[in-house]
C-alpha cells in the first residue's frame, strides 16, 4: 500500500467524501463562477478542507470538461453542474476523424490551474484532481445507447474511439499531476451499466491502461464506479490495481468488500441525495448502518456514494462529519 493510502487508513475519521460543489453556498458564488475560475476553485477546496474534517481535498467532479475539449456542446447553468448538451458522434467510425484535443484546451487549463493553486494553499492533506473514465467519456461523445449498440455492431471502431478517449485522459491526468495533484479520482459510472462481458472488453482494459500510465508511489489512483452492476464485475475491478475503490450506494458495500484486494482501500457509500433531501437523522442512520456492516474490514472507509449535490443542506454535511467523528472517537 502506498504511503498516502496508509496515512488515510491510519485516521479513518478523516474521510474522503466527494464534496466540492456545495462550497458555492459558503462562498456565495454560482456554479458558473466556480467552474470558470481557478482562483475560486482553489478557494472552494481550501474552504472545505478547513471547515470539514476530510482526509483529502477534491476538486470539482465536473464530468463535462473532457467532452468539451473534444468539441461537445455544453450546457452551463448558474445553479447546476455543466452537462453535455448533445453528442457529437453518431457512430464509432466518426471517431477516426476526431482530433485528439490538446491539454489546455476547453476548460482543462482552468482545472489544471485550480489544482496548482489548491496545492499551494492546502498542505496538510493530499489534493486530488478528478476526471471522467474512458468509456464514460465515449458515452458523452456519442450518447450512451448508441455507444452500447456500437459495442455490438462495430467493436473495432469502438475500440479506436476508446483508445482516443484513453489517450486524452492519460495526458490530462499527467498534466494535473504535474500541476501538483497527489492523486486522481476517476469516475467511470457508465461502465456500471455494462454487462460484465462488455465491461471486460470496453472499459476495464482502458481503465487499467490509464492506471498503469499515471500511477507511481506518490500518486493515488481512486477508481469510482457508482453503477449497479459492480458486484457482477467485482473480479475485473479488483484486478485494476487502483489504490482506492470508491463505490456508490446502488450496491451493498459489505458484499463487495470481501471481493476487493485487502491492500486497497474501499470507500463508500452513503446515499448523496440524503444531503439534499434528508435530515441529519437520516445521515446518522445511513452512516451507522454502513459502519455496522463494514467496519470489520480493515481496508474500509466511510464516504459518500457519489457527488454531494451542490444544493445539499450544510447542516446535513456537518452532521456527516460529526457522526463520523463519533463513530471513530
Amino acid at each position, binding site marked *: 500500500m502506498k504511503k498516502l493510502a496508509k496515512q488515510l487508513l491510519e485516521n479513518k475519521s478523516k474521510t474522503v467524501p466527494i464534496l466540492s460543489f456545495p462550497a458555492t453556498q459558503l462562498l456565495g458564488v454560482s456554479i458558473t463562477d466556480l467552474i470558470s475560475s481557478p482562483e475560486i476553485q482553489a478557494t472552494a477546496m481550501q474552504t472545505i478542507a478547513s471547515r470539514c474534517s476530510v482526509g483529502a481535498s477534491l476538486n470539482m467532479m465536473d464530468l463535462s470538461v473532457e467532452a468539451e475539449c473534444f468539441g461537445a456542446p455544453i*450546457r452551463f*447553468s448558474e*445553479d*447546476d453542474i455543466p*452537462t*453535455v*448538451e*448533445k453528442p457529437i458522434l453518431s457512430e464509432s467510425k466518426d471517431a477516426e476523424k476526431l482530433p485528439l484535443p490538446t491539454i489546455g484546451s476547453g476548460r482543462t487549463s482552468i482545472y489544471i490551474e485550480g489544482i496548482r493553486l489548491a496545492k499551494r494553499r492546502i498542505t496538510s492533506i493530499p489534493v486530488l484532481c478528478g476526471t471522467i473514465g474512458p468509456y464514460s467519456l465515449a458515452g458523452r461523445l456519442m*450518447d*450512451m*445507447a448508441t455507444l*452500447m*449498440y456500437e*459495442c*455490438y455492431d462495430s467493436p473495432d471502431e469502438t475500440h479506436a474511439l476508446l483508445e482516443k478517449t484513453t489517450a486524452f485522459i492519460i495526458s490530462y491526468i499527467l498534466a494535473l499531476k504535474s500541476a501538483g495533484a497527489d492523486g486522481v479520482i476517476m469516475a467511470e459510472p457508465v461502465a456500471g*451499466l*455494462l*454487462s460484465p462481458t*462488455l465491461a471486460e472488453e470496453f472499459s476495464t482494459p482502458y481503465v487499467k491502461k490509464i492506471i498503469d500510465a499515471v500511477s507511481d508511489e506518490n500518486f493515488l489512483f481512486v477508481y469510482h464506479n457508482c453503477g*449497479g*452492476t459492480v458486484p*457482477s464485475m467485482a473480479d475485473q475491478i479488483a484486478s485494476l490495481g487502483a489504490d482506492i475503490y470508491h463505490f456508490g450506494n446502488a450496491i451493498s458495500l459489505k458484499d463487495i468488500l470481501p471481493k476487493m484486494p485487502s491492500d486497497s482501500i474501499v470507500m463508500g457509500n452513503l446515499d448523496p*441525495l440524503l444531503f*439534499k*433531501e434528508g435530515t441529519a437523522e437520516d445521515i446518522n442512520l445511513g452512516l451507522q448502518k454502513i459502519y455496522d456492516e463494514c467496519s470489520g474490514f480493515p481496508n474500509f472507509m466511510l464516504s459518500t456514494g457519489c457527488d454531494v*449535490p*451542490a*444544493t445539499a443542506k450544510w447542516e446535513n454535511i456537518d452532521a456527516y462529519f460529526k457522526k463520523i467523528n463519533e463513530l471513530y472517537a
Partner: protein
Amino acid sequence: MSNENICDENTLFQSVTTYSRIYNENHLLYNAPSSQYVEISIVTEGSGYHRVFNETTECHAGDAYIIGGGISHGYFARSEYERPTVTTISFDVSSWFDGELSNIHSPNYCGGVFRDELPFSYALLNSKTMDELKGTFRSILQESTQKGANWKVSVRSLLYLMMVTLGRYVNLADTLKKDHPRDWITVSATMRHVLDEYGDSELTLEKIASDLYVSASHLSKIFKKVAGESFADYVRKVRVNNACEFLATSEMTNEEIIKRCGLKDLPSFYKLFKNVTGITPHQYRSMRKSKGKFLSGDHIMSIVNEISENLQRGKAKIVRELVEKALAEGVSVNLILNEGLLDGMSIIGQKFKNNEIYVPEVLVAARAMNMGMQVLSPLLAEKGTKPLGKVCIGTVQGDLHDIGKNLVKMMLEGKGLEVIDLGVDVPAERFVSSAIENDCQIICCSALLTTTMGVMKDVVDEAVKAGVRDKVKIMIGGAPITDEYCAQIGADAYTLDAASAADKAVELLTK
C-alpha cells in the same frame, strides 16, 4: 409422416363442419362428400341400427361411426320403437395429411364401429385437453412411422382423436340443439347447402331459406345465433377454404378458381382472400408449393419462438428476416407480434428486473423488436389493430439524461403500448399538451438530477390546470425519485426500474 403434419387446435376446428341429417323415410344416409373429407357420425340420442356395406349392427347413444373418402357411405335406420338422433361431423382432413391423404381415400376403407374398441363417452371427452390430444396424436404418428405400420394404425388413431375433439364440439352443438332444436337443424342444413353449393355465385340466403321453407330474415337471425357468425361470413370462409385447396393442389388459374368458388371477380377475390388468410393467393400458392405442406401449430410456434429467441439475443437483422419469413409462410400478424416480438421483450424485461441481464442487452433486444415492428406496423395499421394504450414520455426540463427514459420507452413498447417520445429537456406544459393532443392515458417523466426533479411536480400541476388530471395517469422515475416523493407531488406511480414501469403502466391501463 413428420410431426409437422400435426394440426393445431385452430386448424382442427377450422376443418370441421357439422350438420345433422334429416331422415329420408326410414334411414339416414351419410357419406364423405368428397375425397378431402372424413365424416364421423355420432348417435347422440335414441337407438336403432347402423349399416355399412353388408354389416348391420344395433346402435345406441354414444356410438360413433366413420366414413372416409367420397365414395364411401353408411346409414342409420330406425328400430321398431324409436330412431337414433345422429350428428354428423365432416372433417376436411386434407390439411392434416398432406401427402398421406390417399390412404384415407382408399376405397377399400370405408369406416368402422368404434364402440367395442374405443369406448366413447362424453365424460372421457371432456377430460381431454388439446395438449393431451396433440401429444397423443404425435406419439401415435411417430410410432406408426417408426414401425412402418400400415396406414390404418395412423388413420384409426387419428380418427379416434378426431372423435375426442368432436365430443367437445358435439357437446356444444348438443346444448344448442337442446335449447333450440329446430334452429339447430335448420342452420345445419343451411351449412350443408353452402358446402354443396359454394361454387354457385348466385347462392343466397334467400334461396336456401326458400328451400328450407323458412323466411330469409329468420334464417339470417338463427344462423348467427347458432353458428356464431353471419351467413355471409360463413359463405366467404367456405369459399376461401376451397380456394386454398385449389391453389394448393391444382394448377388452376385464379380466374378458374374464382369461377369454381362462386366468387365475383379478381379484385374481390384478392381482397377476400387476404382478409381471411392475411396473404395473397399468389403468396399462398408459393408457400404451399415451396413447403409442400400446411403450417402446423408446431411449425408456427417454432417460427415465433425463433423470433422471440433472436430478439432476446439482440439479433435485429435476423429478427426482421424471420418476421418477413413468417408472414410469407402465412403466420398471422398478431401471432408474430404477441408470441414472437412481445413475448421476447417480456422475457427481456423480466430478466432485467431480476438483474440477470444488463442495459446493453435490453437496448439491443429493443432494437431487434423495432426491426420486427417495422415489418409488422403497416400490416397492423391495415388491420386497424390498436395498441393497448398510449403513453408520452420524456426527461424533464433542465435534464439531458436519456438512458433511463429510453429504457422505459423500450419496455413500454415491449408491452404493446404506443409511446410518444418527447425527448429530453421537456417543459411541464409540453408533457400535458402532448398527452392531450395525442390522447395519451399516461405521462411518464424521467429525471436523473436532484435539481430537475421538481419539474415533475409542475407536470402534475399542469395536468390539474388543464383539467385532465382525472384522465391521465402520471408516472415518475429516475435515480433521485422515491415513493415518498411520488406521494408528495401527487403523481400516480413511481417504479424502481424500467421493466417495473412497463408492468405498472399496463396495470394502470387495465384497472
